[in-house]
């Protein structure tokens, strides 16, 4: 049974040997010349004019976090929509359940709003 996997093993060994072999080869054989221009980060041909480490305002992170939360909400809504028509015949429960879910998220939204998470200034 294991015999069937032999080609995969050979392929794996070959891949490793080839990949590391090439890396080692270029490390030992390749010529290396350093210069100031080469050491600079490439920024689409424009000369770098400041440090790459800049402090971002925390507001960006808050916006990103909020985006993820409401994005995940949509992820839950899609499968619900797909099965809605078939399952709603068994009762209104599936509708109420989603209303509860959205209301809980709206409470979170209201909280963020009042706390000033959406104010940029």
């Amino acid at each position, binding site marked *: 049974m294991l015999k069937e996997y032999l080609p995969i093993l050979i392929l794996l060994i070959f891949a490793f040997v080839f990949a590391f072999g090439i890396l080692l080869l270029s490390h030992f054989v390749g010529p290396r010349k350093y210069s100031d221009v080469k050491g600079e980060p490439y920024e689409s041909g424009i000369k770098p004019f400041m440090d790459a480490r800049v402090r971002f305002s925390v507001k960006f992170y808050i916006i990103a976090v909020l985006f993820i939360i409401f994005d995940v909400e949509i992820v839950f809504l899609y499968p619900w929509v797909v099965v809605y028509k078939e399952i709603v015949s068994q009762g209104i429960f*599936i509708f109420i359940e989603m209303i509860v879910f959205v209301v*809980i998220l709206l409470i979170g939204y209201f909280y963020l709003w009042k706390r000033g998470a959406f104010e940029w200034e």
Partner: protein
Amino acid sequence: MDYSIPTINLSVIGPEIIILLTAVSVLIIGLFPNYRRWSISIVFIGIIFAFYDIYYLWNLNQVGFDGMVLADNFALLFDIIFLIGTLLTLLLSGNFINQYIRGTGEYLSLILFATLGMMLMASTNDLIVIFLGLETLSISLYILAAFRRSREDSLEAGLKYFLLGAFTTGFLLYGIALIYGSTGTTNIYSILNFLKDGSVEIGILFYIGMILIIVGFGFKAAFVPFHMWVPDVYEGSATPVTAFMSAGVKAASFAVFLRLFITGFSPIISQITGILAVLAILTMTVGNVIAIVQTNIKRMLAYSSIAHAGYILVALTALSRNIESEFSAASIMYYILVYTFMNIGAFGVVIYMEKSEEEVLKISDYAGLGFKKPFAAICMTLFMFSLAGIPPTAGFMGKLYIFSSAVESELYGLAVIGVLNAVIAVYYYLRVVIFMYMKEAVLDFSYLSARPVMALSLSISVGGIIYLGIFPQSLINLLTNIL
């Protein structure tokens, strides 16, 4: 494809729903500074309603959500323990809330969300829901630990707790996955049936999964190789949060242990008695020995809480040896209830001693308290006696039950080691009492004013440990019949 809606029975999670609605409403009310002062009253009303609902559900043994959630008396008893812990903590939090008045809504709702997670953990029959409850509990506690966000030690506590907690959650989830892989179910009763059935051999993966689950909850309950976070987190968090954490999380973890051991894993649990015994000995000994050298009272109580987890583990070991023993299970539940009273009470006196801007945490600061503030000192003395296990307090009865359950299961060595540990513990508990009554005061206690609400909480705790210490029999009878 056919879809069917599972049978839902919302009344099963009635107490949980009440707590959730309360938490959400205080979160909203906290946003309006004019109405903020009402939030604490709303929390108390919510907790009273939850108690009433538990009283209503008692003895009904309801099941809902396709058998995933159940409200048997075991779950309801643990709900009561969690709610008592929450109530006592909130009564002690007045000063803390006033310091962080803008965060009132967040603080109260996070405490309630954590309680909700604990209640869910106790009242479920499914490993996935246990995990869900644990995460609700843990995430709330990570935030609460870092609640004093302008202080470095609080942030350190929050981050440390979060990183280590997230790591051990991985262990727990992996354990659940392995058990699902080898049994094909996450339902605890189905796991029991699988083990009883015997037609399929129980593989090594099932045992690994069981051990990983014990590791995951052992972290939360602070068993000894997984205890490293406890002192730092307890010291860095605000003291009311520490009180809440020390009692509630431990109770929730042991609730899950009891549920898993008594139902799910019961046919094979006697095979891991040895592991549990080693954990119990390590936990008791390390906790007690390190507590001796502590000069900071919060760190001392942190190590003492590790040691108490060890005592409860002794009873759990006895239970695993003799799974039919209702007495072992009852002694665990009794000890958890008593521990809630005495530990939150001890932290309550620590909270009372705090100044508004700085904490008074050295044990030597308590010198002379006995004559300046007799009520606080008497409460502290009783809590220390109870933690040390001196009659007539409930701590004594709790230890008595635990060690006799170990003897009942013929674990004599474990019982002897436990008693020796209890003797070591007397030293550091009584040191606080000695400082309070036999040393000259170094601090001017004039900053301490009467705090009626806090006194109420301390009185409830003292009443609890005295009453349960003198009349334990009716409660023990109730607990033995609960399973």
